[in-house]
């Protein structure tokens, strides 16, 4: 025990003790206040939402299954028409998936470019890094619905407004995730390539992309899953695809509940399949490709 602190005078210990106890008390009070605040916020928020809602939580709770029951009852009656409905709505489903796929692809490319331009050590114009960061923040902040509805006004209905809206948002959110990946990437290969006289494109493509590609792809797959949901929901509020069909079937109600059930099922299966595929692939990418970040 060569350390001098072992012989710390008794008064030193006293200050450490009281300091620690004081800190612990502060932490406890702080934690307690935060907890109470959180519980109060949850309770007050719930009561407020409950009061401002048409139906109350207590009143509606027992009726959650009324609507699904209605739909399933009719779907059960017309079970024979189900395969026909699947065929009928398959093109709409494809459109929804296409919207998601294209926007994810565009988002992947755009996000990758943006994130590289916004990372120190990789940026083509280091002074413009904050500009690209802000652009990404901005893209990320725009809810898809805003862009989609405005573009529907300009471009007319169809898949393109939804695609642009989702792509724009995807560029922002993937860009941010990619930036984090980039920050963890090793810049030594880039230096190595600089030293051989490689230009910016070569430096990034050969020095950065091989390092980050598995993580990029993994995030993009996660995004694809999210984008399928987004594309369905945008269909519901005005863009095309399966969401549009679902809205019409659901709105009509009795008589088309079998259609609604078929669409539900298609959408559900698609989401589950993509979800499982993407998690399997992501697992492979991050684990199989060795030491990715994370």
């Amino acid at each position, binding site marked *: 025990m060569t350390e001098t602190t072992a012989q710390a005078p008794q008064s030193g210990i006293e200050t450490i003790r009281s300091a620690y106890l004081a800190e612990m008390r502060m932490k406890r009070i702080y934690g307690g206040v935060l907890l109470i605040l959180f519980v109060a916020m*949850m309770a007050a*928020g*719930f009561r*407020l*939402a*409950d009061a*401002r*809602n*048409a*139906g*109350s*939580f207590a*009143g*509606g*709770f027992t*009726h*959650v299954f*009324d*609507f*699904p029951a209605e739909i399933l009852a009719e779907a059960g009656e017309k079970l024979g028409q189900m395969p026909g409905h699947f065929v009928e709505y398959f093109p709409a489903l494809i*459109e929804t998936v*296409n919207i998601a*796929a*294209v926007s994810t*692809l565009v988002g992947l490319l755009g996000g990758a470019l943006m994130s590289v331009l916004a990372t120190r050590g990789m940026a083509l114009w280091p002074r413009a890094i904050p500009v690209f960061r802000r652009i990404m*923040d*901005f893209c*990320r*902040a*725009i*809810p*898809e*619905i*805003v862009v989609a*509805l*405005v573009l529907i*006004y*300009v*471009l*007319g209905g*169809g*898949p*393109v407004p939804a*695609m642009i809206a989702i792509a724009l948002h995807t560029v922002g959110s993937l860009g941010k995730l990619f930036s984090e990946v980039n920050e963890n990437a090793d810049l030594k290969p880039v230096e190595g390539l600089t030293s051989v006289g490689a230009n910016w494109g070569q430096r990034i493509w050969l020095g950065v992309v091989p390092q980050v590609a598995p993580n990029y792809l993994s995030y993009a797959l996660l995004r694809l899953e999210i984008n399928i*949901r987004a594309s*369905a*929901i*945008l269909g*519901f*509020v*005005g863009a095309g695809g399966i*969401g549009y069909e*679902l809205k019409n079937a659901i709105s009509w109600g009795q008589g088309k509940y079998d259609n609604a059930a078929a669409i*539900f099922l298609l*959408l*559900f*299966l698609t*989401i*589950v399949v993509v*979800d499982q595929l993407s998690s399997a692939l992501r697992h492979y990418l991050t684990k199989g490709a060795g030491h990715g970040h994370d």
Partner: protein
Amino acid sequence: MTDAATATTATAPDLKATADRLFARKRWIALAVPGLLLLYLVYVFFAFDIPGLAQRARLDNALTLMRDSYSYKTLVTRDNRADKLTVAIEGERKGTYPPGQEPDWVHVDGKVTRIELPKGAEVTYTPEAITFLVPDYGTVTAKIVGRKIETTLPPGPTPDWISASHTRLMVKAPEGRLTVTRARVEVARYFPGWEMFFFTLDSPYFGHSFADLASHVLSGQRIDPERGNLAGIWHDFWRNPVWRHAEVAWAIFETVLMAFLGTMGAGIIALPLAFLSARNFTPTQGLRFGMRRVFDFLRGVDGLIWTIILSRAFGPGALTGSLAILLTDTGSFGKIFSEALENVEEKQIDGIRSTGANAVQRYRFGVIPQVVPVLASQLLYFLESNTRSATIIGAIVGGGIGLLLTQAIITQKDWEEVAYYVILILAMVMVMDWISGLLRRRLIKGK
């Protein structure tokens, strides 16, 4: 260089062949992957009818939208049947100038009304005819003769911004828009800015500058003798009947509330369930499998469908939206949390176990401190992204800023209102993003 020396050159040709094969494969991949993607994009290009889109795209709509989002129009309308003149901002009742107090660019002289437009353009209503003097073009005259409208244009081809028929005349000059039908005549003059954003015309505070208002507040000299200045100003601004700041604020709050309740509720429900589906905490495979499928189901059904299903039970409103977010996110959190739990380090738990701690204490000190950062950061991440989702879900369940936005876009009346909502939504999301980032850094880094 012992090994270098012993490496025989005899192996070099083999190695070269191997390398050639390697590069042939690499090249193939390097070309095939982009090629496939390109093919897919070409397919989508036609599947989405992008060529047709180029024709259908209405850039003039975009221009209208742009212009409307930062400017407003004042309408000078003459009802031909009742022979009544009204001057109203955006045609709103709350923006109607009292008769005799028209703005200075509208000159009423008995039955003759002269309306000054920018750049020397001018419209005159007389009982007999309506004339529109368009600079660099000439004068357009319209007469209502019996059931018909007779229009006289300057010589030459009719420009595309004039649309005339015997029932209707419309002139869309850059200086203003004139519409003539048998029933009424209307001129719209555009001004930059958001009209009546602070006060409507009927408020006594309308037309006062900021400095002016501030000086009144400071001096205590009442603008409206009925009320104190500050209270009055606040009331008239907050209760502004055109922009409805109070209700918009509530809508924003409601959106955030939906996201907050949904996300946090889901987190609270998902945490215990996640233990049930984590391999290292629930050895019963059947239970684990069951829990996982429940999570998959909740997630797979998706917020959209939950929204629809819950609308019946709970009716329109924010609670329905929160519950929809809650159900979907319970699925997502269940999955994420259980993965986090499966990744906990055994070392720390071992350390606690070795002191003789019981199971609950092991979880409390060995597990919770490890997973809290993951949980907290995921919760905050979802909170931020759910603020965006809540905007859309609100549009479906009828609550929050999403409803206001979609309705304003669909009815296409006031693009400045749309612009206002969009700005508010962006600000809301960015603030949530900022708060969530701040809290994340605090919770994870500890300082």
